[in-house]
């Protein structure tokens, strides 16, 4: 007997509509799963009363036959989304005590679609990190373990709390955000599905900004169908975000036909990295064979500037972050340092930011400040933006040549141990995003789909990259891959 919190969005939706369960029961099942999962540290702010009130309202709507797409479905919201009257700290000390007076467009869209928010999910501070270890709340933990080894593994980052919560069935689905891979890498590390849509598909309004030209929100779910349902509820034009696209939102779920015959799938040779584990290579080859069996045309492609994506990202993202994070000054919200006698406003800024930001955030703000400073702006920032244009052009050229989607590994490894990278060079951690970051730089949609287990029993994911605004097509290809891979493994419950 499947427990209610173990359901995905589509199964729960269907059960609700047939009257087989209620939103209240689903919500209570999730709340009790959350209560028993303190060891995962996935939920960092709990809103059970709000959740039960929303569940009750959803049940009334269901009874009245007026149920929107996600009516009554309990989900988690990443701490990066501002939620009215509910702590929204972006995983940072500097936003301690901040209670937004407004609701982010995405969380509002989800609420309007009837979704029930269970609470806020752990994340790397300001979404800067790939292991959840930069969080002010302490890291979230991956429900997956290596065989019988009880070493704690990272759920990935930055949306690590979201990934951990979905994989451990604490909620039916969760929101994530992705600036360089922060939805897709944690999804791959936890055997869940995560899609970053085309830049502009989801409104950024009310999401704490990291790197505005790269940030996009997306769903993290238990299946591709669930991702289609939730993405549709999230996206749409928002006049409050000037980069939000004024395009109609397709019916993503209806696009899941299972037919990809005649579609061209590109395999980029530059994604074959030196030192990549054999298991990742094998997984990739298996994925290629699955797409081919489903009737797709497989073609080798070249994206020659791939190698320069991470260095370009580590100029552009910190530059934008240094500008976006200038607002945390101890004046308008969040933490302000205690001042000594005679301290002026500069000391207030400097002490507040020194106390409020963690080491990785400080490092990136300072790198960003440096690459934007007089004398270096052209050499670093403008050069990186020109390389970014070339990375985007690489993709445009393969799409123009008839490629519909691109298949790559999602990550260069399976989930690693918490603490394993502590003494590593910061650049070693950045390499986690090597397969995902190109997609943000080019503004494209990308989805991670669980495709297999490694020798130690940890999930591995594949990534499909689509043409701009072609999420419907991308989700359809992803579902074909999902079904062929037949990934059904779940982590054994130890928490």
């Amino acid at each position, binding site marked *: 007997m499947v427990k209610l919190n173990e359901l995905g969005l589509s199964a729960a939706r269907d059960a609700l509509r047939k009257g087989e369960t209620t939103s209240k029961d689903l919500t209570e099942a999730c709340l009790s799963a959350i209560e028993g999962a303190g060891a995962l540290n996935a939920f960092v702010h709990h809103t059970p009363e709000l959740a039960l009130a929303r569940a009750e309202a959803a049940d009334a709507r269901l009874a009245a036959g007026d149920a929107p797409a996600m009516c009554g479905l309990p989900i988690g919201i990443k701490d990066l989304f501002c939620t009215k009257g509910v702590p929204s700290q972006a995983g940072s000390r500097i936003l301690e005590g901040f209670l937004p*007076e407004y609701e982010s467009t995405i969380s509002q869209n989800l609420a309007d679609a009837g979704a029930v928010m269970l609470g806020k999910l752990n994340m790397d501070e300001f979404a800067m990190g790939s292991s959840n270890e930069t969080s002010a709340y302490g890291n979230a933990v991956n429900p997956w373990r290596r065989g019988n080894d009880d070493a704690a593994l990272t759920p990935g980052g930055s949306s690590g709390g979201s990934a951990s919560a979905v994989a451990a069935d604490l909620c039916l689905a969760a929101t994530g955000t992705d600036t360089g891979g922060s939805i897709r890498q944690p999804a791959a590390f936890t055997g869940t599905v995560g899609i970053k849509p085309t830049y502009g598909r989801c409104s950024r309004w009310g999401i704490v900004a990291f790197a505005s030209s790269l940030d996009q929100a997306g769903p993290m779910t238990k299946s591709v169908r669930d991702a289609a349902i939730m993405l549709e509820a999230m996206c749409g034009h928002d006049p409050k975000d*000037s980069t939000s696209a004024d395009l109609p939102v397709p019916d993503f779920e209806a696009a899941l036909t299972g037919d990809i015959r005649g579609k061209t799938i590109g395999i980029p040779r530059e994604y074959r990295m030196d030192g990549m584990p054999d298991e990742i290579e094998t997984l990739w080859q298996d994925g290629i064979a699955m797409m081919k069996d489903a009737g797709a045309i497989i073609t080798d492609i070249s994206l020659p500037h791939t190698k320069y994506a991470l260095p370009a990202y580590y100029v552009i993202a910190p530059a934008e972050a240094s500008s976006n994070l200038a607002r945390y000054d101890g004046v308008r*919200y969040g933490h302000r340092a205690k*001042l000594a006698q005679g301290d002026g406003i500069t000391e207030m800024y400097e002490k507040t930011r020194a106390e409020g930001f963690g080491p990785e955030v400080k490092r990136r703000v300072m*790198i960003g400040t*440096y690459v934007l*400073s007089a004398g270096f702006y052209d050499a670093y920032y403008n*050069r990186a933006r*020109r390389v970014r244009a070339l990375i985007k052009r690489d993709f445009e050229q393969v799409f123009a040549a008839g490629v519909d989607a691109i298949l790559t590994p999602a990550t260069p490894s399976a989930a690693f141990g918490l603490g394993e990278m502590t003494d590593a060079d910061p650049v070693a951690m950045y390499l986690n995003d090597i397969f995902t970051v190109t997609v943000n730089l080019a503004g494209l949609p990308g989805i991670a789909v669980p495709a297999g287990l490694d020798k130690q029993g940890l999930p591995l994911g594949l990534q499909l990259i689509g043409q701009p605004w072609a999420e419907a097509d991308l989700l359809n290809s992803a579902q074909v891959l999902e079904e062929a891979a037949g990934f059904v493994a779940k982590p054994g419950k130890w928490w």
Partner: protein
Amino acid sequence: MSIDETTAARVAKLSRIEVAPEALPALAEDFNRILGFIEQLGEVDIEGVEPMTSVTPQVLKRRADAVTDGDQQGKVLANAPDAREGFFAVPKVVE
């Protein structure tokens, strides 16, 4: 291009982040590692390529030049660490 402690201190100052003098050598080392990684961008031929300004081709929307928001002083100040008499309060700025 190597970052020394003086440069690291200057960048910290520009960023308005207090860094203790004893933390500067490690910070400079981190900068050098990251900038060393970024240096690869120098290999790319960018002749004739314009810096990207927008990842999706778009024309920004215009709206009527009218007041559409405001009158929310209470909400604006609600999260301030120190708000007094309808203002944000900060240490003395002008002597």
